[in-house]
């Protein structure tokens, strides 16, 4: 995987959790904040930090937006700050991946309009999870184990490269669950656009290069399957 340059704006408990989840060996992460004290704690933990005022475009450029930064996380606590940062960054770089958190659900649409690629509403997700724990704790557990990858089980996306042995086969012929111990959940079929289709037996997809398979399973078997897919014929 290519090394990604990631800038995290705003240092707080939430961005701390994010940085913990990011693979620091694979990605270059830099934390940007205005508060001096916040940054001292972050620097103490060994993170790269920059103290600057995000409201100034020159400062943003210094951080590397519009140049080498690939992914921008807007993790300020105030929606207005995130919105402002999103607008400034989008103006400087059209291709930048911008991910922002949102406090007030009303701001979600505004952030999308401003140019964010992904909105994360931590409170909504948390509320949903709490409710799930009441209604059906089993599902909450299984979700924890599978898609949140608490254990060995993981969700992974696998793109079919050109000239892969899988090209021109149908999704139903893959037999992933018996052959690889993986479960195919969803497919992005290029012929049908960028949209994600859950493979719940409504439609059979012909696989081409560039299609993406979303699979669920133990990490070892995911790696094995990946290898096979990428096998050049």
């Amino acid at each position, binding site marked *: 995987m290519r090394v990604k340059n990631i800038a995290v704006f705003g240092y707080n408990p939430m961005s701390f959790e994010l940085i913990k989840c990011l693979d620091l060996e694979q990605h270059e992460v830099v934390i940007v904040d205005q508060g001096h004290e916040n940054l001292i704690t972050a620097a103490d933990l060994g993170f790269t930090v920059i103290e600057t005022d995000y409201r100034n475009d020159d400062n943003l450029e210094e951080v590397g937006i519009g140049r080498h930064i690939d992914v921008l996380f807007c993790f300020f606590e105030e929606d207005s700050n995130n919105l402002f940062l999103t607008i400034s960054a989008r103006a400087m770089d059209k291709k930048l991946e911008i991910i922002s958190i949102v406090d007030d659900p009303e701001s979600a649409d505004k952030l999308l309009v401003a140019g964010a690629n992904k909105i994360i509403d931590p409170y909504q997700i948390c509320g949903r*999870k709490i409710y799930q724990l009441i209604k059906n704790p089993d599902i909450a557990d299984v979700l924890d184990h599978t898609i949140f990858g608490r254990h060995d089980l993981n969700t992974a996306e696998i793109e079919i490269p050109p000239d892969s042995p899988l090209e021109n086969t149908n999704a139903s012929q893959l037999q992933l669950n018996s052959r690889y111990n993986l479960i195919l959940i969803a497919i992005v079929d290029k012929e049908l656009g960028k949209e994600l289709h859950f493979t719940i037996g409504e439609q059979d997809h012909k696989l081409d290069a560039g299609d993406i398979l979303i699979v669920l399973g133990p990490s070892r078997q995911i790696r094995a399957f990946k290898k096979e897919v990428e096998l050049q014929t």
Partner: protein
Amino acid sequence: MLTRLIIHFAYLLKTSSRYQITKKFAFNLLENPGSRLKRHFDLFMILLVMLSVFLLIYEINNPPIPYSEWFENIVVVVFIIEYISRGWLYSDSHKILIEHYERAQYLGIKFQLRKPLTTIFSSKLRYIFSPYAIIDLMAILPSYWPLRILRIFLVFRLFKLVRYSHSVKLFTEVLANKRFELFTLAMFIGFWLFISSTAIYMFENEPVGGQVRHLFDALYWSVVTMSTVGYGDITPQTPGGRIVALTLIIIGVGVLSFFTSIIVTAFTEKMEELRENRTFSEVENLDNFIIICGYGRVGQEVAKHMDKDKQAYVIIDSSEENFLLARRNNCLAIKNDASKNEVLLNAGINKGAKAVLCTTGNDVTNVYVTLTSRHLNPEIKIISRANRQENIKKLKQVGADFIVQPFEISGLLAAEYVGQPVASQAIFGIINEEKNILMETILVPENSDIENVKIKDINFEKRRLILIGIISNKKIHCKRNNRYKVKNRQFYFNPGEEFLLQAKDILVLLGRKYSIDYFKDQIERSSLVIK
């Protein structure tokens, strides 16, 4: 001999279930504020009082209606029965007797009947002199023949309404709460009335040429003037008298506004409590509900889901802003500190609540509320939010069953997005139940079509479902691979085609809501068919 007989009788009452039931019934009828029976009884008594007073007023100027005597007698009998029953309920005489007797036995001294009897007597006396009992008695007494002259006091029956109507009760309570202020005001009024009465009598007595004949006239004039009523039948003629009048009028305006403000503030203070009481009584009618402590963003989100599923809940939040928001959203809400025992008890933690959620943004509060809830109810399910990693252990320690970290989940999802944008989209889709696609569990019922059936024979694909795994604690499966421990059971990921389903196994499925519901329906129906 008599002593032994009485003690024997007391024990008989204590063990008699019929006596207990009767007493319980009487308690529910007369005193228990929560019982429905009391509400009906109160309504009936209000009607009775109104009718009897109406009859009294009617008969002042009209010939007596036939049967009115009968009606009056019935009313009085009902009142007497009520009066005696309340006296009976006021204290448990047999318990006092037994207590004294057992103490005497324990200490090895001779039991004397005199002591408990005085205790019983004094407690009953306390009842007789309690304000409500006096009112009750006054409603009865004037009907006694030799006291017929006092018939006019039958109007006192209206006071009985205080007992039955909650709002009238509230009014008296409000006045009682403001005792000190009202007393001050009364002193102030008395002082000025005294001064002005003497002054006006000095300035305006008849020898001087005024209209005030004696001190009572002076007092009458002062009250009429001070209350700003001012009939004008007695008017000051001399300049001195007029100055008194001017002063008194100004003081009167002040006194009136002061009085009004006392009453108004008393009511506004009481209003909050009243509203809370209503919430409590509404909570009491609920069953299987959930207590949400903290109506911040997370609490709101949870409440929204519950609204959708018609799950009853009650919110506790100490912040004014959140409380008002909850009210606006038509939620049952209590504005108070959820870490107090009393608040949680009032919210029904031991009366029908099935779970407590600690969803405040403050971990300290969450820990405290969790601890309090666990202390009050060892059985209840507690789900708590933790904002910092290091607090998870503490929450577990104080008894939380589940802990949710909003920041951790979002961090995970955000990180996932960097590495695998498409996979994260699928994850978002599943947890947000987008396009009606969700993960759901289905229990394999006993004697159903899918019990003892192999996975390959169910054909999930045709049902448009994906089988993710099976949760089970059956020993029969435990040789299989792909096992993951989930709590005290096993989760079998991607069970093979030969997997034999057992009753009580739980299928974990992914699919559209209607396919899942349909499948569930079919299974349940098949389990009902007798084979």
